[in-house]
């Protein structure tokens, strides 16, 4: 029986408008609304899972014969994407496993790794952990002061460069054909606009639901099943599915440009609901042109096939950014 759940809004001092907040599909009490549609718990879960499956199919993120590596941290996005990958892979008989990078951020990553371990044990998912400490000799916490004070580098930059290297190398060593990340609509909107603000159109060319400009057997293609899912939807999904997710914000977040962009976008979304979809959808329209343009430019062509002379990983110069950083900080 539909729940009587009434919202009253006063507009310009006129009589309140009575607006029932019930599920558009079944009339039960709504817990979420998006773009004029209301969802009860069951229909929200159905909406979320259908949307992720559609994204995987529409952009051909997974194929028969793939060995999927899910990059996981134990946070909400990675647990949601790991769960959805599990559902999809079990349904279509595709191999998958989880890979976690432990950067060594005290009071942050240790909690999420704990959540990830519990999760993988519960669902019987194979998982591997690679740490900065094992790979580079020290963890991010020990690098941070030197990075900021001696090299004027933000910890997020250092973290991102080392994480990308380890994820790609780890996935490749484990024979993965695709690397799944938990990037969502909010992340993508932020990245697109950050690249615009910074004048990095070429970076945008390698983004999208499948990253990279061209195929290279040293790179494991990255795919994003949560591409059109908002951050809010992911947290709600985790909550309703009963996943243990502790709130953990990276202690270095206040130092990042991303956090400022994120706050501005959320302000715009409040006055213009659907703005995030607008940014990403219009980006998807121009993405094929960007890819075509940058694939054919001389600079990109030459950069595609270089390998770092120190570690052998693909890079754009003689030495990859991770090796440069390693010699500065480790």
């Amino acid at each position: 029986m539909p729940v009587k759940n009434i919202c009253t809004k006063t507009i310009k001092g006129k009589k309140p408008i009575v607006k029932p907040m019930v599920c558009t599909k079944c009339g039960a009490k709504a817990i979420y609304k998006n773009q004029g549609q209301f969802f009860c718990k069951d229909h929200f879960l159905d909406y979320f899972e259908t949307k992720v499956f559609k994204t995987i199919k529409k952009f051909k993120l997974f194929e028969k014969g793939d060995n999927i590596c899910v990059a996981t941290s134990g946070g909400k996005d990675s647990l949601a994407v790991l769960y959805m990958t599990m559902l999809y892979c079990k349904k279509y008989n595709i191999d998958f496993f989880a890979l976690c990078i432990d950067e060594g951020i005290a009071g942050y990553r240790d909690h999420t790794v704990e959540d990830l371990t519990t999760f993988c044990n519960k669902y019987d998912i194979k998982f591997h952990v690679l740490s900065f400490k094992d790979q580079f000799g020290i963890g991010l916490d020990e690098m941070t002061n030197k990075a900021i004070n001696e090299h004027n580098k933000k910890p997020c930059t250092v973290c991102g460069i080392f994480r990308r290297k380890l994820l790609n190398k780890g996935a490749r060593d484990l024979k993965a054909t695709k690397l799944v990340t938990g990037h969502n609509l909010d992340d993508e909107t932020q990245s697109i606009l950050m690249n615009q603000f910074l004048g990095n159109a070429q970076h945008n060319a390698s983004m999208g639901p499948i990253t990279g400009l061209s195929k290279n057997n040293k790179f494991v293609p990255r795919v994003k099943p949560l591409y059109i899912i908002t951050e809010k939807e992911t947290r709600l999904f985790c909550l309703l599915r009963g996943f243990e997710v502790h709130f953990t914000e990276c202690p270095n977040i206040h130092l990042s440009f991303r956090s400022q962009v994120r706050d501005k976008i959320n302000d715009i979304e409040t006055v213009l609901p659907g703005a995030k979809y607008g940014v990403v959808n219009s980006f998807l329209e121009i993405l094929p042109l960007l890819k075509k343009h940058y694939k054919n430019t001389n600079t990109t062509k030459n950069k595609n096939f270089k390998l770092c002379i120190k570690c052998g990983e693909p890079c754009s110069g003689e030495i990859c950014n991770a090796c440069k950083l390693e010699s500065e900080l480790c």
Partner: protein
Amino acid sequence: MKVFIEKDNTTIEFDLSTIENQTGIGLLKELGINSNTVLFVKNNEVIIPDEELSETDEVKLLSVISGG
């Protein structure tokens, strides 16, 4: 009314009568919290923050932003 703010790991006492619009949206506005950044939980149930509130409600604002 008790309001738990997960991001700050704090619980505050909030006098609902001090705001004109006694809904979740009104509360978020008063606290300066963007509704896109939290899940609104009232008496242990997720709600759409347009709902009306009463002084006896227990509210939790769960942050949807994590990571870096």
